């Protein structure tokens, strides 16, 4: 049974932090694609994101429409929406 309290999850907070940093790096790399340092940070955070997404989806259900890992139930629309408190 999935944890329905995903909005209070520290895992979610960590994912938000990593994706926030990844977004900023993406914008930086769009403008400065030759920056090896930025590309290195990007890949390091990408690895962190991959692990966090796998852990998050296993505990709280799909993060995207491609993340419904269960073959027996459709969870995408039934887990809480992000604005629910």
């Amino acid at each position, binding site marked *: 049974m999935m944890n329905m309290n995903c909005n209070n999850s520290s895992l979610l907070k960590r994912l938000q932090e990593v994706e926030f940093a990844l*977004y900023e790096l993406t914008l930086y790399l769009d403008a400065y694609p030759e920056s090896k340092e930025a590309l290195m940070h990007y890949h390091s955070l990408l690895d962190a994101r991959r692990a966090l997404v796998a852990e998050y989806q296993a505990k709280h259900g799909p993060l995207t429409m491609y993340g419904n890992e269960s073959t027996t139930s459709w969870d995408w629309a039934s887990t809480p929406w992000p604005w629910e408190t």
Partner: protein
Amino acid sequence: MWIYEKKLQFPVKIKNPDARAASIIVSQLGGPDGELAASMRYLNQRFSMPDRKIVGILTDVGTEELAHLEMVGSILTQLTKNLPVSEIENSPFAQYFVDHTAGVYPASAAGVPADMKYIGVKGDVIADLNEDLAADGAML
């Protein structure tokens, strides 16, 4: 195409409803320089940009504005949740409420529905980026 991620870009957790705040913050959703106008500005200007790097930035910034749009909608939803009628009646939110109740409707704080006449898309890189600077400053 776009893929939705079922999370907010930044957490929104409002404990106390506030009708007056909602009546002001709605402009960030559907006002002239709100997130809807910003996302439409960038995502449509992309097509005529002469440089792939600029298209990349406009794509990614425009997508981020859609995430901001969802955050502002979440703020409005939480600010107006379980509001007592008396608090609505005695606030500037009353005029909005009469047409939309607590639904999230893109309009300015003055009640003007969101309109794309606010945005500039000229098919010219200098004109469009100058428009973005004036409207948002995010392109700096």
